[in-house]
Structures are given as C-alpha cells and as structure tokens.
C-alpha cells in the first residue's frame, strides 16, 4: 500500500477496503471459516476485474489481496486498494472491484458454527450490488 501511495507524485487519493470475518452470520455464532478457491481461475478472475476497473475509471493502480484456507473471526479476508488523482474515481473503482469479486471470483466460504459446518449461500443482494454498475452504463 505504501508502495502504491508513493509510486508517483500525482497520487491524490488512496481508497482501501478491508473485509473481515464476523463472529455471527444468519443468526448463528461463527467460530471460524475455511475459504476454498479455484487455483488458476481465481487469479485470472481477479486480474480481469482489476483490468475492467482500470478501463472504466481514471485511476492509477489497483491491488486485490484475498486470503484462502482457515480463518477466524476478525481475520482479514480481503484487501482492495485503489490509487488515483481524486477520491471520486478511487472510491467508485474500489466498490466496483468488491462488487464483482463477490459475484464472479471463485471463492467459497464454509463456516464452522455451534451446529456444525455449513457452506455459505450466495446472496441476491450481492448480485443487485453488481447490477447497478451495468445500469449506469
């Protein structure tokens, strides 16, 4: 992040998002989770989303780091960092990247709860969040 911030003298905005594991989901206490991915496709999907964001907004650079494997509550799952000249484009690109990551990048969460393990179901609200970007085209 420091390297992106200092990469060029006209960086005026650094927008960052961090997603964390919560200890509660769908009414159950979550003691941990395991994140599965599709080696190869996951990296390609993230690179593709970043490239689309760079094509759509006037930003300088974007970075995505996503964890896999075993995670505990308050562990950081995902980091998105976007640099640009101004905050508007940086904020928007950061949200765009997260919305597409949530709906297109092949990751799957399996939660450990009091009642055992369960796969997290995809949420329609995540599809809605992505949809708004195509409506504004």
């Amino acid at each position: 992040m420091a390297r992106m911030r200092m990469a060029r003298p006209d960086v005026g905005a650094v927008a960052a998002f961090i997603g964390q594991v919560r200890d509660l989901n769908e009414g159950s206490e979550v003691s941990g989770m395991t994140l599965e991915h599709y080696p190869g496709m996951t990296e390609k999907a993230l690179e593709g989303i970043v490239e689309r964001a760079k094509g759509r907004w006037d930003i300088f650079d974007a970075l995505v780091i996503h964890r896999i494997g075993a995670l505990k509550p308050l562990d950081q799952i995902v980091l998105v960092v976007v640099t640009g000249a101004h905050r508007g484009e940086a904020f928007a690109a950061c949200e765009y990247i997260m919305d597409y990551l949530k709906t297109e990048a092949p990751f799957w969460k399996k939660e450990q709860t009091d009642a055992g393990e369960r796969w997290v179901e995809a949420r329609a609200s995540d599809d809605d969040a992505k949809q708004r970007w195509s409506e504004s085209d």
Partner: protein
Amino acid sequence: MIKLLYFARLREALGIAEEEIAVPNDVADIQQLMAWLAQRGGAWQEEFTGCRPLRAAINQELVDNTAAIHDGVEVAFFPPVTGG
C-alpha cells in the same frame, strides 16, 4: 477427453474433486454435459438437474449453459461464489 472439476458444496455432495473423461459426441455444450452427468444418478442427478443453482466455467472463464465443449477443455462446476 475433457477434464472436469467440482468445487465447494458440489465437490462434497459428489464425493469427487476432479476427473478426466471421454464424453459422447452428442454432448456438445454445458447444458448437455449436465444432463449427461445427471444420468449417473444419486447425488449427480440431484445436483445436475437444476434444483440448486450451479455455475460453469470452461478453461477458467465463466460461461453460460449454451457454451460449447471441445475435446481437451477444462470444465468446472461450482455453486454461486461467496468470497470477499
């Protein structure tokens, strides 16, 4: 021959992560491949007859059910993604 990969809940339901198989000539797209796999019965029938949402990728690109399958491709099936 094609390579088939299964992920997450689907992988557990089917009890297999990947396989290499020869498919009949009349199995030419994702929809037809799903119908063919469903014929294995049991969990395969449950998972591939459309009761639960599935996504497909060919050579690591998301595709819809009409996408064509060619010899040598890598096809993956998985539930809707839940990362982030």
